[in-house]
């Protein structure tokens, strides 16, 4: 047999052997292409090939080497893929098992409501007064009542049962005293006073599903030249729509507070209000009290009620949270039951 025939035969058998299932590619490579391998052996016969044929035979030899090398490489790659697939298959897990959870703490639901209110009023250019100096939780009778136009024998004091510490010191029953403390310090040359005062307040009440001796209020006040009741209406509409949704409406009803005149109760619609809705189909829920600040209150704070006018309102985060989420017992807010707190975990809503 000629060398060419030998090479061709080697190529054929090599292909066959490479494609044999289960063959050990590395030892096959050595036996075919190694220094003592079959191809090397055959090519030793090149020295016997006539000079003019050497080039052709050499090319055939190279072709055989190349073919075998490529095939071996392909086979090896295929084997590696198979091996990898096998390994990956063995690593398959049940992806439906629960993930390991990472604790993320939640702001208290009342804090969330207060945060929403704060965000809204910051956007409207209001200051937040909640520090221990201007918004103390323990107040004087003077700031809590007398400055709010509630002298000592005023009948409306019956509306607020008070935890007194001494005859002159008490747990504040409302966040309204923050108004007076802020007004005293305000410099009107820098524009109107626009402030809200969130914080805890206390009433001498027996705790039950709808009463709590401790709850929260957010007092709001704007004092300036030409502040009107229409401005109050617009301000309250904007915060109620921020809290309850844009399609909710408010209505104002006459009421009485010693510190405002006119005074109103404000209701928010429980349902969304559309233009074609009949008035009797709107269900109203009472949510807050408000009014134009009483001239006596302004005067006591050193503000000329002829020059300046003001409105004030008091928001109740506890009540808002109860309405918004259907919480039927106010005591839930102060038990700090993890099962309760952790439900209010939605962010960015």
């Amino acid at each position: 047999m000629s060398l060419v025939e030998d090479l061709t035969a080697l190529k054929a058998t090599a292909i066959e052997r490479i494609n044999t299932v289960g063959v050990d590619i590395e030892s096959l490579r050595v036996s075919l292409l190694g220094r003592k391998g079959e191809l090397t052996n055959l090519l030793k016969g090149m020295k016997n090939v006539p000079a003019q044929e050497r080039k052709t035979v050499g090319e055939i030899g190279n072709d055989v080497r190349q073919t075998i090398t490529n095939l071996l490489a392909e086979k090896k790659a295929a084997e590696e893929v198979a091996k990898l697939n096998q390994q990956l298959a063995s690593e398959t897990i049940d992806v439906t098992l629960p993930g390991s959870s990472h604790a993320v703490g939640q702001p208290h639901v009342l804090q969330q409501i207060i945060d929403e209110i704060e965000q809204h009023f910051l956007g409207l250019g209001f200051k937040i007064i909640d520090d221990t100096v201007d918004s103390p939780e323990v107040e004087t009778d003077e700031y809590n009542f007398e400055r709010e136009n509630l002298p000592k024998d005023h009948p409306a004091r019956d509306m607020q049962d008070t935890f007194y510490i001494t005859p002159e010191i008490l747990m504040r029953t409302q966040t309204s005293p923050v108004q007076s403390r802020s007004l005293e310090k305000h410099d009107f040359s820098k524009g109107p006073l626009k402030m809200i005062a969130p914080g805890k307040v206390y009433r001498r009440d027996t705790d039950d599903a709808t009463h709590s001796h401790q709850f929260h209020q957010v007092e709001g006040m704007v004092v300036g030249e030409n502040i009107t009741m229409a401005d109050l209406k617009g301000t309250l509409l904007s915060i109620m729509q921020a809290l309850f949704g844009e399609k909710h409406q408010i209505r104002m009803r006459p009421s009485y507070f010693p510190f405002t005149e006119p005074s109103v109760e404000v209701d928010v619609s429980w349902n969304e209000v559309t233009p074609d809705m009949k008035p009797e189909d709107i269900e109203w829920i009472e949510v807050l009290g408000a009014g134009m600040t009483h001239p006596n209150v302004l005067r006591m704070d050193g503000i000329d009620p002829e020059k300046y006018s003001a409105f004030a309102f008091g928001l109740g985060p506890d009540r808002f949270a109860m309405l918004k989420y259907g919480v039927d017992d106010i005591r839930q807010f102060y038990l700090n039951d993890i099962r309760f707190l952790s439900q209010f975990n939605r962010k960015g809503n």
Partner: protein
Amino acid sequence: MKTSLTWLNEYLNNTINLEPAAVADLAEQVERTSVEINESTTIAKGQDGLIVAQVMQVQPHPDSDHMVIAQVNVGTSDLVQVVTGAPNIAEGQLVILATVGAHIIKHDTGELVTLEKVTLRGQDSYGMLVALQEIGFDNKIAPKNFEDGIHIFSEQDHVKPGDDALVVLGMNEPVLDTDLTPNRADMLSMIGTAYEFGAMLKQKVTVPDFDLVEYESLASEQVTVTLDDDSLAPKYALRVINNVTVTDSPLWLQKRLWNAGMRPINNIVDITNYMMLMYGQPIHAFDLDKLTHHELHIRRAKKDEQLVTLDEQTRQLRSGEDIVIATVDEPLMLAGVMGGKSSEVDRQTKHIVLESAVFNPSLVRATARRHNLHSEASSRFERGVNWDNTLTALDHAAQLSDELAGGQVARGQVVASNIQRSTKTIALSTQRVNQILGTALTLSDITAILDQLSFDYQTHDDYAEVILPARRPDMGITADLIEEIARLYGYDNLPVTLPYGPTTPGQLTQQQRQIRASRRIMESLGLNQAISYVLTTPEKAQQFAENTTAKLLTLDYPMSSDRTTARQNLLAGLLEDVAYNVNHFVRDIALYEQGRVFIANEKNELPTEMEHIAGILTGNYANSTWQALKTDRPVDFYDIKGIVSDYLNQIGVNHVTYVATDRHVNMHPGQTADIYAGEVYLGFVGQIHPLITKAQKLSSVFGFELNLFAVMSNSELDVHYHKVSRFPQMSRDAALLVDADIKHATIESLIAQVSGDKLVNIKLFDVYKGDKLPSGKKSLAYTLTYQDNDGTLLEAEVNADFEKVTTALINELHVEIR
């Protein structure tokens, strides 16, 4: 106040539409314009089929001792047979029959049921004879005459068989129960309410009229009165009516009373109540013959006086405070609050003294509160009665005593005081109204509303000078009038605007930003925010307090023994929260609270309030339903300490040191550290004392409490950027065998001190204590990392620096390098 629209219509020329749908609209209008409505109702509440029947025949029931068989005439030719157990039935009586098919409110459930023919022990009964309490009358308003039987009409009621009992009894009169705010004294009367409704409905009010006939004899010869001090009663007048016949009131008056929620008692008492409802002016009647002396004296109570009031309670009077009407030897009544038993009008009374007065509102209010005796009279005097009506109501009451009780009115009023109230006027300008309301009303818009209100005024160029009427004691200043304009103009009609003017920035202060950031950091570290009660027990108020000798802030008159004292620490509240959760099967708890603590100062001085932040951990650190071995492990001191140190790091407190302490009595003496920023005490962290947690059946609980003021004043707000080195790091490990009592902090600070400026990190990666080590020793292993910002470090440099560290450790702490 329960306001019958039928009655109100008398003063409003019958312009109120009494159809149910119209009444509902009116109630809505009242709520938007005037006051809240508690309830819009009728006594009938949907009942029907009630007719007047005359008992023609009563026969015993053959098979019952307590029932009888009655034949009643219902105005038709056939008699109706009714079986009844009423003990007070007799032939000839006019009674109320609930007919077969009638709808009656079932007493126990409050639902309407249809009456059917029944057979009672073999006898057919076509309906039921009823008491008022069985057809929707509250026990408080049903007359007491027929308490134990069916209702029986009197002859003077002028009813006849077949009449609709609902009409006869006024049970279908629509009643609006107004929920009055404390300023609306005027609406505690039907006339005042008529003015209010008239303003809404644009109707003029017709006030009631009467003709008083007086006899020759002078009242002042029968009774005299002296007043100590005009401020007790600026108006006080009496009338004497002789020879009255005390009996039941006519049905028309009884209807007025029970529709107003009052029980008819007898004609004289009913007249006084009727006047109070009509004018808002309480009137009192004394039995003249029961007065031991006929010289009355209005004065403050004396020492040790007592009085039995009409409700049969013995009241110890407050000397110098309660106002009493007294004879020379006994107090007769608590003025303006309640009459006395000793001079009560009863069915034997012949001669009466009627009193009408204005009593000092503050004193009446104080008396009502002191004796817990809030009466119809006191609620009116407290809010203020119409001074212009005091004497009119007295005369009207006298006239009715003549008309309804056949009395003879003695000539003249006996007056102790009659101070005139000065009329006050207020200038109301269109400019001011529009400035406050944001409206564009004209003067004629404003005067149109004043006309609706029946306020008198004079107009000028651009303002109206309004005369404040005596019936509105709540009117005093311009703002009061602006409110009247606003509510009648309609709050719904006000424009909707936002305040305009100079822009004000809405921004948080530095302190507010830090407190809000503190909360966010705690939440990102896995703690839920808690809000606990500020008021607690004295023990808990100080349980984990910074200074256990600080003065407590204590309530003067607490509601319960659990809530007497303002807290001085937050951790005690969080510990209560933990106990609550564990009791409710929640075992893994991570909470924080940010809030105030209170340190009392001198009496009548405000306390010092400080912001604190505290956290608590118990149970397992993480929790997995199925990988328990991998993740579940009980929390320990280092978990809570890690939270504190991560927090302090992020809020910008540097140079924090943790100093082991056993000074907190309620903390574990071996697992608690005081926390300092430099020299400043910030708070503490550690395990709650096991004695406390065991007593509450809790597993180990870990907590911290920090003074936020101290944290904030020691935090570095600016971020200092350091260029990130692009040169390689080198590290060296050192395992140290040291005495067990040498603290990590000591080693760390020594390393930092001697290591040179290339050391960028010291990391403790292993702590070992155990059998394999000599006793009294522990092993600590550190990795020291070196890096240079300006070039690649050389082995030799690092080796030299590391050598300095090991030498120092060996020399100063007798460490053995392993």
